[in-house]
């Protein structure tokens, strides 16, 4: 054996090339005795071995049962008898025929199968991700889709069951109606069912939560860029919630999870188990303590603003690594709030403070109007003065409040027990100092420190708007999303948000209910009056103020969004609240180019002034008003929850862009119909996809994103499957129309023009929204459904186009006009086949941009406004009875828009449109849209320079010539998609 070691001299080159061996004590090399040098060539010459028999190793592992059965036919083996790995503890079955343990939790073992008996979909339990009072969350494998999901298995007790149904309802609504495109960072719900008397809710599987993330980081804060990224995403979610009138009620780092495997960190908000409708704030003991808002703590009525408080706490915690208000008790919590927020350190923020009334914003305790009303005030405060001065919550008379927080001793005196006081984590007492003095990362170059210190000032300002004692002054998601800390703009002076909280961009979307019965109708409501109304609102509206922020170019998106809709339907169905529609248009004309034309015969047109930004609002809420909930659309609720919980009060309607802060009187729309989401859910495979096409199809109306789908279709070029569908539908279905209109919208966004066409029709329509809505309903019923479905079936480009969805996400930040245009152009140039693709992109880009525009002003130049306006026409359509006609218009319009960067006067445009429309009729119009515009424009020569890319003409021109596609839409669509793929 001795000679073995040293015997490596003779080694062939094969060995030597493998590099030097460092540090190994005995250098051993195999000698080449019977082993020869490795030579792949020789091997290559040999024929490949065909091995017929399974290797013995496989026959004694993988196939050992078969092997044993061959050896011994009596051999039996049953997996059933395998020892079970229990995932649930305790694992003794004492309840529910032995299925449940003493806690009413279903006893899970590895490979336990949960089955949705209705769909026969199987969920194979692989692990338990967590558990809580509600039950357990299991990681399950779904063989049918070859994917993992997270299944929440609710305890077999009525209270938990009921509460979980609320979660199902809320999430279903949020997902389906408000965020069909999955862009608002809310966890997706895929399915739900009852198994062994346990309600099981399936969610997309997510990764670790933000608390764990901080923990992994050893409770050091995350980098500001990450904090900003997460803040932006959470705000998108909160905007959606606010829009939907839903309060999460338990926002905390533990309930914000990273998504699995997405490159730029993406997060999702989970756990709607405590969520409630804003108008159904039943519980007073909500929110986890550290993140509990003052109004909840004090027992005051609460709104979605409590989530913004929690959000502020989370942002601070992400930055600090430790909770901002780690109150050991409620007393301690309040004490910390007052201490940290109460003292405003001028010296630190001095440079920031320019505004004289600055301090006022920084009130050091809850406003008197809250304290006066709150149930628990006496627990924490004593009254030291008269409250008469209180007005609007501005109590500061001589800077004093009528209330003073109890000291520890006083509290003890009243409560007869010492309050629990936690330990202090920060050396500094007030927010400014805590943030400012938080240690910088090591080895940070000086310039980076300076840079970061600036961002920290922005962060302080940001936090101040969030952890604001006065819920009325606390920023809304929309307001917060415009803060320089979020937008990344340089922070130069204290942020003054638009005074009012317009409904967030989310609203831009017009939500179309996917349910055939439901959502499409929304558009209907436009009455001519509306525009005026809006207009008015507009002027008044806070939005205006915003304008300044917007880059000059930006859009002025102003708008009002917002219309909320409640569903009438809700009552009966889960979750269908609001679906529908909000639409508003904003235009930001940035410039000369954009004009919005609006409507009705010009008279109402807003926009006559070119530069003004105008928005048109429309609304569509449609369904609601006249409809009776009973309308056939509702699906039966499978689960039997009591509808009543969900029913939004009628008063609820929020809305309207016009009225800032308060809920507008109008409740625009309620959808009457959405099937019960629940039932739907089960069926819907689509959920899995990022974009579910069911939605997309129907959703055209939704904002731009939806439009993308639409666009894709359109782009197909020749035929627009959808379009056709719509057209056919046309007469009957408002919804389709809408979709068209949307399309129009986005296009319009570009151009700004184009709106007008639709309007004329509108005029005919009854003025009142309500009427409109009713009308819609009427139409809607019969035929509509089918159509809708048809539209639903249309695939979403996102499904095929790998780039599609991701880019959307990614593009947000980056998309600016130039990009968009570029893409757009690209698309346009491409041959017809490609054109569809191109269009798709274009859409995408648009979409993004449109979203952006609201959120970030940066996009400015483009000036897209979300125009949801487009839809209006459609809404009207039903009445008009010319849906087709209308639709045509709208399509045309869009083109126009695109091209028209325009200087075209409104008038011209309109005319143009009309003319077009006529031509376009029939199925062709889709084509028309695409093709026509260019050609027409080109001829006109009117187009604005920017657009030029489009115009190139030949292809377009050609197409124009054969506007009509006879092909059945559906097939077309598919084909095209395939190609795209």
């Amino acid at each position, binding site marked *: *054996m001795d000679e*073995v*070691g040293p015997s490596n001299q003779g080694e062939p080159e*094969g*060995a030597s090339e*493998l*590099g*030097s*061996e*460092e540090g*190994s004590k*005995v250098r*051993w*090399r*195999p*000698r*080449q*005795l*019977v*082993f*020869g*040098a*490795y*030579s*792949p060539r020789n*091997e290559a010459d040999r024929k*490949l*071995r065909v*091995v017929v028999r399974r*290797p*013995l*190793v*496989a*026959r*004694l*592992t*993988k196939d*050992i*049962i078969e*092997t*044993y059965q*061959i*050896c*011994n036919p009596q*051999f*039996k*083996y*049953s*997996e059933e*008898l*395998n*020892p*079970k*790995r229990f995932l649930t503890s305790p694992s003794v079955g004492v309840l529910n025929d032995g299925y449940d343990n003493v806690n009413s939790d279903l006893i899970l073992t*590895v*490979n336990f199968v949960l089955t949705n008996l209705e769909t026969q979909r199987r969920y194979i339990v*692989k692990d338990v991700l967590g558990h809580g009072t509600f039950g357990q969350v299991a990681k399950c494998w779904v063989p049918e889709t070859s994917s993992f999901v997270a299944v929440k298995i609710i305890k077999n007790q009525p209270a938990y069951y009921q509460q979980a149904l609320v979660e199902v309802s809320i999430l279903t609504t949020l997902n389906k109606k408000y965020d069909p495109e999955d862009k608002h960072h809310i966890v997706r719900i895929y399915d739900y069912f009852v198994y062994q008397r346990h309600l099981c809710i399936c969610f997309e599987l997510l990764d670790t939560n933000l608390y764990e993330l901080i923990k992994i980081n050893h409770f050091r804060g995350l980098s500001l860029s990450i904090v900003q990224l997460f803040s932006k995403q959470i705000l998108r979610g909160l905007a959606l919630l606010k829009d939907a009138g839903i309060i999460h009620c338990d926002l905390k780092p533990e309930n914000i999870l990273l998504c699995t495997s997405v490159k730029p960190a993406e997060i999702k908000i989970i756990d709607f188990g405590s969520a409630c409708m804003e108008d159904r704030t039943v519980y007073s003991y909500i929110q986890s303590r550290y993140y509990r808002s003052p109004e909840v703590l004090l027992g005051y009525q609460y709104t979605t603003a409590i989530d913004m408080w929690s959000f502020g706490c989370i942002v601070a915690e992400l930055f600090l690594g430790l909770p901002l208000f780690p109150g050991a008790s409620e007393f301690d919590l309040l004490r910390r709030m007052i201490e940290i927020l109460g003292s405003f350190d001028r010296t630190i923020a001095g440079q920031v403070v320019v505004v004289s009334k600055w301090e006022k914003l920084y009130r050091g305790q809850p406003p008197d109007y809250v304290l006066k009303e709150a149930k628990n005030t006496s627990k924490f405060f004593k009254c030291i003065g008269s409250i008469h001065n209180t007005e609007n919550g501005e109590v500061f008379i001589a800077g004093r409040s009528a209330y003073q927080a109890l000291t520890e001793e006083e509290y003890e005196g009243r409560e007869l027990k010492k309050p629990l006081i936690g330990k202090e984590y920060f050396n500094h007492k007030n927010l400014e100092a805590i943030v400012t003095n938080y240690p910088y990362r090591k080895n940070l170059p000086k310039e980076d420190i300076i840079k970061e210190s600036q961002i920290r000032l922005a962060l302080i300002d940001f936090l101040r708007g969030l952890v604001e004692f006065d819920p009325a002054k606390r920023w809304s998601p929309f307001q917060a999303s415009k803060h320089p800390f979020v937008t990344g703009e340089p922070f130069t002076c204290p942020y003054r948000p638009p005074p009012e909280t317009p409904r967030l961009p989310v609203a831009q979307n017009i939500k179309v209910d996917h349910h055939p019965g439901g959502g499409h109708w929304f558009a209907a409501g436009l009455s001519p009056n509306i525009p005026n109304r809006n207009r008015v609102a507009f002027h008044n509206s806070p939005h205006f103020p915003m304008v300044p922020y917007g880059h000059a170019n930006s859009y002025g998106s102003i708008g009002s969004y917002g219309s909320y809709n409640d569903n009438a339907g809700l009552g009966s169905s889960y979750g269908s609240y609001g679906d529908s529609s909000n639409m508003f248009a904003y235009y930001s004309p940035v410039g000369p180019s954009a004009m919005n034309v609006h409507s009705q015969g010009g008279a109402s047109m807003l926009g006559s002034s070119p530069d003004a930004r105008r928005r048109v609002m429309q609304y569509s809420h449609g369904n609601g008003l006249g409809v009776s909930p009973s309308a056939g659309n509702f699906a039966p609720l499978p689960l039997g929850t009591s509808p009543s919980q969900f029913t939004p009060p009628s008063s609820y309607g929020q809305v309207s862009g016009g009225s800032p802060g308060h809920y507008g009187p109008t409740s625009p729309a309620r959808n009457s119909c959405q099937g019960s989401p629940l039932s739907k859910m089960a069926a819907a495979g689509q959920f899995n996809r990022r974009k579910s096409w069911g939605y997309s199809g129907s959703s055209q109306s939704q904002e731009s994103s939806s439009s993308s789908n639409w666009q894709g279709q359109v782009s197909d070029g020749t035929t627009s499957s959808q379009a056709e569908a719509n057209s056919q539908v046309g007469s009957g279905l408002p919804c389709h129309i809408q979709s068209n209109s949307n399309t129009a919208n986005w296009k319009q966004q570009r151009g700004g023009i184009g709106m007008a066409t639709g309007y004329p029709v509108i005029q005919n329509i009854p003025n009142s929204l309500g009427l409109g809505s009713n009308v819609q309903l009427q139409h809607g019923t019969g035929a509509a459904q089918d159509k809708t479905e048809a539209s639903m079936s249309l695939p979403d480009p996102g499904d095929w186009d790998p780039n599609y969805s991701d880019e959307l996400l990614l593009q947000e930040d980056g998309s600016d006009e130039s990009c968009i245009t570029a893409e757009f152009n690209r698309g346009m140039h491409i041959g017809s086949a490609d054109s569809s693709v191109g269009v798709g992109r274009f859409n995408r880009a648009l979409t993004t941009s449109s979203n952006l525009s609201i959120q970030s002003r940066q996009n400015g130049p483009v000036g897209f406004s979300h125009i949801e306006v487009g839809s209006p026409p459609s809404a009207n359509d039903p009445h008009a009875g010319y849906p087709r006609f209308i639709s045509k218009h709208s399509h045309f319009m869009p083109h126009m828009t695109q091209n028209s960067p325009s200087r075209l006067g409104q008038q011209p445009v309109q005319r143009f449109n009309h003319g077009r429309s006529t031509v376009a009729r029939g199925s062709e119009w889709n084509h028309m849209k695409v093709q026509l515009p260019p050609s027409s424009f080109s001829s006109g020569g009117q187009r604005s320079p920017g657009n030029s890319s489009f115009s190139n003409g030949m292809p377009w021109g050609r197409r124009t010539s054969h506007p009509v596609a006879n092909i059945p839409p559906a097939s077309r669509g598919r084909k095209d998609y395939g190609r795209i793929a």
Partner: protein
Amino acid sequence: MENSTQESHLRSDNSVTYESPYPVYAMALSSVPSRTSLNHQRIALGSFIEDYANRVDIISFDPETLSFKTHPSLSFDHPYPPTKLMFQPNRKSPSSPSSDLLASSGDYLRLWEVRESSIEPLSVLNNSKTSEFCAPLTSFDWNDVDPKRIGTSSIDTTCTIWDIEKGVVETQLIAHDKEVYDIAWGEARVFASVSADGSVRIFDLRDKEHSTIIYESPQPDTPLLRLAWNKQDLRYMATILMDSNKVVILDIRSPTMPVAELERHRASVNAIAWAPQSCRHICSAGDDTQALIWELPTVAGPNGIDPLSMYSAGSEINQLQWSAAQPDWIAIAFSNKMQLLKV
């Protein structure tokens, strides 16, 4: 037979072939040459016969004369083909100098005492509660630090740790979500296992609640059939996937990403063994009839790693052992032959 051609290039002093009456699968080399037996090394060979009755034969090998000696008395019946045979490792002071402990796995774990001229069954270790039920053992490993421990892997998803001195189960762990195909000890209380679930997991008997997944096969649920822990450098282990020509080298410090994948076999790999005398060498053998010796480079080249040397056997190689007692001999088994190859 084909042997003649295949072995024509072999030098007889560097390889020795033993022909068994049966196809050979399980194979074990005694850990210590038994001095009393003239430096003979015992080799246990298990048959693979598609019948309930299988055989285990003990032969001895004399490295001086390069000859095998068979002992008709050192042979016994074994129910089902043994999935693994192993002599007790590190027998520093055998109670009786000429006896060896041999373990076999199949329907149960069995212990045998191999004496000079006889074999005594010592025990049948059965943890099954019901007589009806038998979950076959796919493999086992004898803890070389603490030789009273044997860990078995079973298709019932468990690993069972036996205290063979007392003949009792020390612990039984549901190690995987699917069948467990192989097990290997690292330290006295640490073992790893591979499974049909495609994962390599490390267990520490001091914390039985948790295991560490250090690798998962790229396609979920591609079974991992064999596992070899590098006893010279416990950071490394190797595993093979079913129907794959790859040997996956893992570094337990960097879970999930293999440090190397050795892909020069032209058919599925059936067996792997780390060199007992070097931390950087490993031998693999497979259905391509080849045994390949690899040296792990410090840095893998862009084109993958070529083996250091190769050997072609006459047919698919089913088994491979590289004994610490005879580090310069690699034992392979193919069809009904066992061959010792000098390295």
